[in-house]
């Protein structure tokens, strides 16, 4: 049982962390795009 728990913690946890961080990055980029379209600074373009 402890093997299952620790595998979930480390392997599952790292997978979840990557997914959440990528989703957070996408969300932040969308927010910046909206701000840029509204004329604010922060456009991540060239």
């Amino acid at each position: 049982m402890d093997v299952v728990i620790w595998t979930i913690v480390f392997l599952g946890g790292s997978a979840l962390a990557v997914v959440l961080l990528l989703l957070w990055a996408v969300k932040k980029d969308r927010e910046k795009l909206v701000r840029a379209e509204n004329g604010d600074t922060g456009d991540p373009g060239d």
Partner: protein
Amino acid sequence: MSTQEQRTGKHEVFSSRLTFIAVAVGMAVGTGNIWRFPREVGAWGGGAFLVALLIAFLVWAIPILMAEQYLGSRSRLGTVGAFRDFMGRKFAWMGGFMGFVTIGIMFYYSVVCGWAIRYFVYAVTGTFESGADTEGLWNGFTGTPWQTILFHAIAIVLVGIIIFRGLKRGFEAILKFAIPILFVLLVALAIRAMTLPGASDGLRFLFVPEWDLLGDPELWLRAFSQMAFSTGAGWGLYLTYSVYMRKREDFALNSTTLVAGDFLAATLAGTVVMGTIFALRTQEFALEAVESGNEGLAFIYFAELFGEMPGGTWVFAPIFFLALAMAALSSLIAMMELATRNVEDMGLPRRRAVPWIVLVAFIAGIPSAISLEFLGNQDFVWGVGLLIGGLFAAVAMMKFGVSRAREELDADSDFRVTWWWSGLIRIFPLLFVILMGWWIQQSITVFAPDDWWNPLAELSVATMIGQWLLLAIVMLLLNNWLGRKVAHGPMTTPTGSGSVQPEK
């Protein structure tokens, strides 16, 4: 500006944030994730080691990666130009030192890529059937110089072609697909491993913590070393890719995601290797495999097992060695781009720089292709030398102004790093002294107790420090030339002579 930028007025950038992250993860994920990580974790307390590793990510890797990203994105130059523009012309040599340490790794890493490609070819031709003599195969291959040199040439030319094509048509185009595919392969292999009866013993070895080992300083030193070798912090590779970063790109979240991706790749690969070994063999075999070293684990002990699992010979062996080759090549691409970026900054266009770099890398890698001892020496010298690159990145921040750098990082980051980043950069020299001191002590007492003073011994202190000193002297002698030769970037205005003043 590079010659291309001078001609076109355009600065190439990654097409999206996710592409930048994928390419950066490809830089970090390499053979070490697959064969060094599971050995270290298993031998040093499993989950306890992973806890120490996660702390090492927070304390060393992420701050240094953010510093590298800042160096590259603001200077828009490779390692030499970045250090010149952040610290002053007198310090261009530090960028040269950081860059050449990684280039020194590139010379033998191409040989290692060649091994992975060769073993992929072995795998797709059904070599790993039940009862295969994998030790004989390995000794036969590495004992036949024309073969190791041939596959080293294949690796370096393949990467050269990708780098020749530049960012958009070259490494971005390849890696934005290759890295997600690599993770799919690792997941497929991990599922296969976990479904083998007895795999739980391997997962126990890898993930269940031996908490008492957290009190052993050596666990922490090994965790910090594994982090430094695995994430690419201090190599100058993330600095190089950051040259192509979009303006106002985030620092903190991207660096954190890179590290998380590297950790995920390592835990998947560890699951594959340890789950399979413990499922199909005794604990004694597994421990022997762990003790056998990086190449022994992957190419002898693990390779022996494919013939004993359903689908192993024709499905999982090719997938495993394809994943190994892709991990190696994605890191080699970053190393060659580091070299190319610096040469382009000095005025040689990419289409002329890359063939020369490929030729030099091929020739310089031949000794490692012929002699495993020479390769081991270079791996030791430049691998530990990477720690110095991390120190240099921290020193660059201190010279530039840690508070000033932190303010700019926070302005463009999706989460603020505040005093945490500043504090860690300031104490970095102390961490460096502790880690470097341990490696020197290991060389004297463990690796080369009888000839630590001998510069020709494979793993001696003398060979390590001797080669670093030689590199530092050469870079110092070339400092003025390097400082003049590298083009101006957006941080500098031509002042004729003296130190440059970074623009606000």
